[in-house]
């Protein structure tokens, strides 16, 4: 999928690039692209990641979710051998991640893709192509394709110092995808992009998945993760709260009703239309038995004298799951803290 509206066929004459064989080709053919077992990391006594187990199969797209400070970036860095774990192991294609050869066939977009401002976009990509061991007869055409893929066609001769944040992120994505890696790790790949750019990145991730590339997507944008990932791993305060398939999430028939006040009688009315979820004295979340039942519910509540402020369909059931998981974890942690303080 191209980020640009131009005809992608323009590059079809260029010879395809090849990369050095992956370690898995010769060492462990059955090893998954990524496998982490019991990873732990603490900085000056503060635990950043606690017992992380994660395996990603070929062609699988996994979303790594969590609030700020959850330990996602530390986890990603350990998976790439950039940070030494205090305990546990991380393997890429069956090779310990701290060995350079493990990173053959891996594309990585860091959260901040820092590049020398004096270099042009094409120079940056060329350097990364060299480092990735990309071997091609026509380097120029290959780089043109890469720039085109991320919507930077015609901008490769400009210096990176003059790029916007979004353009740098696009360039970083192009660098990560050089040499057709079998595992791509993207750390907040759309944080600097506009909505159109985000959609384009989603399309690229889908293309990668279709091509059999394993993808680990670290993002705080739940809709983005839900749209492209098959599996989600939610982290909070260094721990994995859940590792589950997106297909197994609730169907998304929930609505959030906000009122001036809800009594027990009002809640009983709501329960007549579906399963009552989280609620307090003003708001309630209800999983409707029927997706078309919203007007009926509103009519019933108004008839009971409820003053309704808003009714919001919750399209992203992942969002609800995330908020619930993280919220519960915070509640649990606070409760433990209070208990400890009370001793």
């Amino acid at each position, binding site marked *: 999928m191209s980020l640009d509206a131009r005809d992608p066929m323009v590059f079809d004459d260029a010879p395809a690039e090849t990369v050095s064989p992956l370690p898995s080709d010769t060492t462990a053919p059955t090893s998954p692209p990524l496998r982490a077992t019991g990873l732990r990391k603490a900085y000056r006594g503060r635990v950043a990641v606690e017992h992380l187990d994660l395996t990603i199969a070929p062609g699988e797209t996994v979303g790594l979710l969590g609030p700020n400070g959850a330990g996602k970036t530390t986890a990603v860095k350990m998976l790439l051998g950039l940070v030494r774990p205090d305990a546990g192991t991380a393997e890429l294609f069956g090779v310990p991640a701290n060995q350079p*050869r493990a990173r053959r066939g891996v594309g990585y977009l860091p959260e901040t893709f820092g590049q020398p401002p004096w270099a042009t976009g094409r120079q940056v990509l060329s350097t990364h192509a060299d*480092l990735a061991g990309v071997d091609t007869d026509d380097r120029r055409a290959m780089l043109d394709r890469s720039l085109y893929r991320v919507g930077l066609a015609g901008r490769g001769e400009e210096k990176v110092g003059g790029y916007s944040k979004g353009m740098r992120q696009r360039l970083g994505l192009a660098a990560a995808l050089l040499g057709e890696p079998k595992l791509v790790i993207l750390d907040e790949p759309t944080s600097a992009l506009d909505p159109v750019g985000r959609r384009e990145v989603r399309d690229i991730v889908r293309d990668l998945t279709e091509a059999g590339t394993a993808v680990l997507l670290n993002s705080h944008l739940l809709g983005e993760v839900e749209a492209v990932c098959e599996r989600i791993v939610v982290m909070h305060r260094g721990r994995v709260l859940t590792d589950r398939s997106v297909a197994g999430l609730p169907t998304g028939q929930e609505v959030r009703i906000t009122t001036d006040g809800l009594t027990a009688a009002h809640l009983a009315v709501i329960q007549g239309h579906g399963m009552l979820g989280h609620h307090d004295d003003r708001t309630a979340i209800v999983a409707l038995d029927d997706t078309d039942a919203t007007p009926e519910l509103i009519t019933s509540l108004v008839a009971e004298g409820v003053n309704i402020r808003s009714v919001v369909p919750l399209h992203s059931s992942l969002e609800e799951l995330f908020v619930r998981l993280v919220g519960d974890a915070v509640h649990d942690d606070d409760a433990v803290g209070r208990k400890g303080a009370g001793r």
Partner: protein
Amino acid sequence: MIIMRLSLREAISRRVLAASTVFSVGFVGLFWLAYSLAFSSVAESTSDPSESAVVAGILTIMGLYTVQFLASFLTILLASGTVASEIDSGRILSIMARPLPRWSWLAQRAGTFGGMAMVYVLLMTGAVLLVAAGIGGYQPLNPLRGMALLALQVAVLVALGAGLSTRFSTVATGVIVVALYGLAWLGGIVEFVAGALGNQTLERVGIVVSLLIPSDALWRGASYYFQNPVLLMAAEMDDVGLPFASSVPPSGPQVAWAVVYVLICGTLAVRSLNKRDL
């Protein structure tokens, strides 16, 4: 080679080289002017060729002393950001996520910066000696040995700077290496004064400092080979010599220690980078 190319372009883009070149051309021009004026003034006032040779020697050593000073600061400036600047900018993440050993990356960067500083010090030394030879017919004892020792001095500063930059910020590394360089200079002066006074305790202090950082000891060793025999003889007769130069050749263990020092700093730098979280 990839990282060497990148580091070279980085150094050029930082305009450190351009500024150094402009400044150095200016310095050599000024040296040529001062040297010719001073030398012609001495030649007019005395007919003793040995006196002229001593003056030529002193002027040359002063010029070379400035050269090694400039080269040292250029080296420190380049080397102090070897690792730290890459970490600060976040550039190291995307590079180290490639199948590239950390030691290779570090060796290529430090090697490029060190190589550039060595080329600089050799060109500048050659220019000063050419001016001295052209105007005053100056003939140093052994310029190649002197240049080799100055190149070793650059290697010492690069290895130290690169090693420290694996743990400290660019600015902190620069400050520490400049401070150590200053300490070495002070140690050299202390050793000189101790030699003149015959104070062995002070002399030991100077030796300890030169073990801690052998940059000044290497300059002093180089300065011996840059002097002409007449100047060395005059120093021997005075029993003192120039305060910023040495009238005795560098000892074998001294040079060997400098080589070992580079190797130790380099090894520790690699170990430190390997253990460091990025």
